[in-house]
């Protein structure tokens, strides 16, 4: 259940242009709705920004799908975690709250949840997803880990993340400084 090609997220290259957000809306499988998130980390201090895509979690597989009470979120054999099936979604927002990355979005008007499906209409026929296809700076890149390692010296790619005691392996990857092999997020708050 791993993807042949995946998205590599490299925040060091992000120029905060928003092309990914604009392009996500153009994907025919969710036209007009952007599943991308783009955040300035601290605009008061810097222009540094972080694009957040669905990581298509592998192990544990798709927390969003696991917490869905009506099995609306399909994980296909190629590892893609799909958007909630609108004929099943009951608008409970479990996926919105269960995702460690904050990816699924809830449409209040429609009372339906949506998430990235890796532009399945495109990637299933060999095209790249819209966000990584258009990304001007390759902060989002669609390809293989070997390609990224070869092209970007002094960088490592990671697909293992620790949230407190919980380890998670994802289908998409982060590009990080070479001293990292796992990304650890300390738990904060109560």
């Amino acid at each position, binding site marked *: 259940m791993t993807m042949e090609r995946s998205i590599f997220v490299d925040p*060091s290259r*992000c120029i905060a242009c928003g092309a990914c957000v604009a392009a996500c809306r153009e994907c025919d499988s969710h036209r*007009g709705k952007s599943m991308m998130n783009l955040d300035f980390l601290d605009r008061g201090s810097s222009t540094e920004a972080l694009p957040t895509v669905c990581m298509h979690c592998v192990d544990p597989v798709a927390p969003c799908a696991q917490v869905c009470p009506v099995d609306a979120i399909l994980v296909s054999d190629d590892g893609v975690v799909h958007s909630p099936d609108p004929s099943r979604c009951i608008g409970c927002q479990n996926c919105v709250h269960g995702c460690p990355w904050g990816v699924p979005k809830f449409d209040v008007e429609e009372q339906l949840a949506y998430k990235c499906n890796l532009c399945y209409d495109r990637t299933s026929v060999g095209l790249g997803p819209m966000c990584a296809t258009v990304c*001007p700076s390759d902060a989002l890149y669609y390809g293989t880990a070997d390609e990224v390692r070869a092209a970007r010296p002094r960088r490592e790619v990671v697909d293992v993340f620790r949230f407190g005691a919980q380890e998670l392996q994802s289908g998409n990857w982060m590009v990080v400084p070479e001293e990292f092999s796992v990304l650890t997020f300390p738990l904060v708050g109560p």
Partner: protein
Amino acid sequence: MSTSRRRRLALNTRYPTPPGVADLHSAGAEATGGWETDKADERWVSTHCAFCGVQCGMHLRVAAGEVVGVEPRMDTHNKGKLCPKGVAAYQQISHPERLTHPLVRDGGVLRRASWDEALDRVVDGIRKVQAAGGADAMATYGGASMVTEKTYLLGKFARVALGTRFTDYNGRMCMVSAGAANYRAFGIDRTANPVTDVAQADVLMVLGANVPETFPIYIRWFWEAMDRGATMICVDPRETALARVAQIHLPIRPGTDGALLNAMLHVVIREGLVDESFVADHTTGFEAVAESVQAWTPERAAEVCGVPAADIVRAAEIYGRADKAMVSHARGMEHQVMGSRNAMAAINLCLATGNIGRPGAGYGTITGQGNGQGGREHGQKCDQLPGMRHFTDPGAIEHVAAVWGIDPADMPGPGEPIFKQLERMEAGEIRGLINICSNPMVSWPDQARVRRILEGLDLYVVIDIFLSESALLADVVLPGSAWAESEGVVANSDALVCKINKALDPPGEAKPDMWILNEIAQRLGKGEHFPHQTPRQVFDELRRASAGGRADYAGITYERIEAEGPIAWPCPTEDHPGTPRMFEDLRFYTDDGKAHFNVIEVEPPAEEPDDEYPIRLTTGRNVAQYLSGNQTRRLGYLSDQTPAPWVEIHPDTAAAHGIGDRAPVRVTSRWGTTVLPALVVKTVRPDTVFIPYHWGQPVAANQLTKAAFDPISWIPAFKTAAVRIEASDEPAWPVTPPPVWEAPTR
């Protein structure tokens, strides 16, 4: 998918909601054909983007007579990549606000008119103006977002149909400083190296170019260079996304680039880093320049520029020691009274170190507008005839007159930059103006004066696709064609001639721009000189007119571009491969074949901060908007990102003035005043504030800028205004200063 056909126009959604909740419908207008498309009915039209000088390839998705979407195209240049403007560009074509019939002013208001009535008004107006004030009482003002065929036709229209010498174009606010510098140093107005050379350089120096926001696609070559271990020197008063990762960021005071570059050359000479043999064999004027920069010690420049002398020395040494170094600059350095001289100072540095004409070693001025390069080559620029020919060359007039079928004696002389023409309009000498594809009521400095001048004209005609701020003042508004509604070529910032293809006819009663110009010419009795039925006929005439000139298109055909991809001029014959990189043979286009050093006398900015206006204002751009915003402000996603302008203020300065983040600030200059929300950020110099300029009144940045110009290029000094700021009780224009995406609240 269940998205309805609800049409949400940009202006309805001023306040973005945080991601994660209910923002799925607020991202702006859908394509007029609706989001739901049946792909089986679609045809794709391969073309290039409507916006900046990168000219990204894209496919337009066309169905049921409307452009319904965009598909990335693996063009050689952009390889599928698009910035947000490129993604949304298609939405302007079948946009509900398109002008679909002529308008004429009647009793003070614009009302619908037939083409016959509107054109009669135009032609009667021209006749009256010229009967009273002579042929030169009419002027034309063009744009560099039009395909080259239109810009060529406009130059010919002005000189042959109107018989006026007064034609100019909006590159006057874009490329003229760099062009003047390139012409003086190299004898030709074209970028020396293609941007792809950036990836091969060891040292990159970028001055006044916010590449990540204004040319996002070009950033990949900068990142590639840095992956290879290149060193980046970034000169910008703001910490842009490029400055953020530069090894050396020199956040100089706006308007002081010339001092910095003179001091860098001083260090290069002092440290013995001059490429003596290159200078001796291929240049002239070095000695005088070397003497002139003697006085520009790094310490003196540090005082002027407001950056440490040690940083200037370090930057100069790194640049001077590089085997292959590239200098790139854009409007930040050029929108100053020193604009042309700054660019010449940058070229001095390249020449002194022998960085020209090699892969990864050279000089690039990044052209802003979509056809900023092509738009200045073939005759709508006041001092040039097609092929980048100058009036100073008598052979040029004879050649072009022969192509146009007129007596050389009837060729009007060289015109004047538009901002000189404005003085003639104020004096009542020029009484009529035809403005196509430009929006001075956003883009010209000192907006109060601009309005006075335009309103005082006897005849003011606007040809555009939307009712721009400038069209609102017109006597006659003629609905023209958008970029996807005619065939033609553009030259991108690397002088690559790209082919734009037609997707649709103009909507409603709107007409192709070329038809409009030809029709006016017919009615003026000059129809014999305007027989063109198709863009191809214009292009073939343009090729003949340019043949033998500096910008030689003789060897470029539509078929060649379709078959081979974009071709860089000069391209004199059909078997010539084009010229991606200039000066590889170290022969230059000057009379003596050598590159020329130019002595740079540093002059202070047109307005210096003083007690009354103590803060430096510099204006610029945002990634979601293009030029005057007449197109991008109407496109949902883009407008949602930046619905209105803001003012970036350093936290120390904000605190000293009692201004909070997002709080309203009154910004006042000698020329005007406005209230904008503050974006309090450390990414701007404490003595400087920044306002993006893409909007009209009441929030136009150009209400605050002075009508001061570079005496060589007549580019406005947009980057060096002086203002005072104060916390305001009045509500700012209702905006959230973008681009700021809130963290989801959960």
